[in-house]
């Protein structure tokens, strides 16, 4: 009778535990579904934010190029056609300076416009856009750069290319602004469906811990943008210090070609 009692009590306890395990599994599944939905929603939000940012960039670039650029070009034409024979030497010098300044403004507007919306990326692809960008940012500065990109990579998806380009653009701009390197090397490789970029520099770089810390600070908008684009691309980014004292940033993006 006691044995029967013990067995029934054990059965009761085991039954309770079994119900708990089953319920726990259901809970897990529900939580997993919820986190998937949350992630999906977050990705949609990031995507729409990135899309609207790109749209705005495109709009500003067009306005700068078509309106401000055109206005400056017409001003230049009027200035060139202006009769300067009757002007004094001082006024002639001022006229020349104004012409120089307008030329410079046209260049600046064009540069900003291209920066905001890369036509090279659209027409010649990611590799050429990165090369052009690096040439532009290092031109006329003590900063040296080398760019060795995997030519096997062709355009996979215009949106992916644009996001990768923006990440590299933001990373290089950040390096120049904060790390003050003298040399930046950019290499890329395409392994199966994984496009990897390695940005190595000899400035004062970041470790992964510092990056994780900075991207949650309200001031680090650039890093947040980088992270958002990486989430959108389902890629990874890793900051490290090399044994030779230099720093490296490894960017891995899955691509479908």
């Amino acid at each position, binding site marked *: *009778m*006691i044995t029967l*009692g*013990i067995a029934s*009590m*054990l059965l*009761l*306890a085991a039954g*309770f*535990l079994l*119900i*708990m*395990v089953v*319920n*726990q599994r259901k*809970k*897990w599944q529900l*939580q997993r579904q919820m986190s998937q939905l949350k992630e999906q929603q977050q990705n949609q939000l990031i995507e729409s934010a990135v899309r609207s940012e790109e749209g705005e960039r495109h709009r500003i670039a067009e306005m700068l190029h078509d309106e401000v650029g055109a206005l400056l070009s017409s001003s230049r034409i009027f200035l060139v056609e202006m009769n300067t024979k009757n002007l004094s030497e001082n006024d002639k010098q001022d006229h020349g300076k104004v012409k120089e300044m307008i030329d410079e403004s046209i260049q600046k507007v064009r540069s900003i416009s291209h920066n905001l919306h890369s036509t090279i990326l659209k027409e010649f692809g990611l590799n050429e856009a990165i090369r052009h960008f690096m040439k532009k940012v290092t031109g006329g500065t003590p900063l040296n750069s080398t760019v060795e990109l995997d030519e096997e990579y062709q355009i996979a998806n215009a949106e992916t290319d644009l996001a990768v380009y923006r990440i590299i653009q933001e990373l290089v701009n950040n390096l120049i602004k904060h790390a003050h390197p003298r040399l930046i090397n950019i290499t890329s490789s395409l392994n199966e469906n994984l496009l990897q970029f390695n940005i190595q520099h000899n400035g004062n770089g970041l470790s992964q811990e510092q990056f994780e810390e900075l991207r949650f600070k309200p001031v680090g908008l650039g890093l947040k943008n980088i992270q958002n684009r990486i989430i959108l691309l389902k890629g990874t980014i890793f900051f490290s210090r090399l044994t030779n004292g230099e720093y490296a940033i490894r960017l891995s993006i899955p691509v479908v070609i």
Partner: protein
Amino acid sequence: MKTIQQILHWSEVWSPLIPLAFYIVLRPKARWVKPIVTFLLITLVFSIIIDVIWKRKTLGINDWFESNLWWWWDTDPVSGKKIFKNNIFYNLNSFARLVFFLLFFSYFYPFFKKLSRLVPWVFLILMTINFIWFENIKDFSSRQHALEAAILLFCSLLYFYKTNMDDSVVSPSSLPEFRVVTGLTLYTAVNFFIFLFYKYLMGLPEFKKYATDIWNVHNVSFIILNLFIAAAFIKAKKSE
């Protein structure tokens, strides 16, 4: 076989030493650890007393008991032999187990807090009435032990239910205290009927051996409870 029997007989002494050793080495900081460690220390002291009294002849200290503790000796109503009862320490141990495990439960849900404040007093009043009018406190009280096991089993099952319903707990089995409750559930579920019929069986000469043998089941379940407590201490340290 005899060695295994001896190990089992002394299990109430050595098995609490397992979680206590883990506690000394790991020092887990979780708040619920304190009542459990206090219970383990109290049960260790009571178990040493219980087993020393039980094994006094084997230990060669029966004469000392006869000459110094003569006032504690009773006469067995069945055999008429002089007996030295250790059952009061089982009764005290049972009360300590109830109090400290209720304190342990009080750290988790507000309902248990109310229960831990009320139940020990009600239990104490009931047992006082029981020992004044119905039972001798020096005898093993099946009523007290069975009631204590039923209360603790109810608390354990209630804990499982509440944890199961708690949406903030994603994985109840990963909680360190879950292991203590699992051990306690097994211990109380196994022992409820043993406690309930132990005194009755001990009073029947033809079932005395069966009652002694079934106490080994209690001892094994007590070892399992202590192993679960040790596992909970390890988990609590890892979770810090």
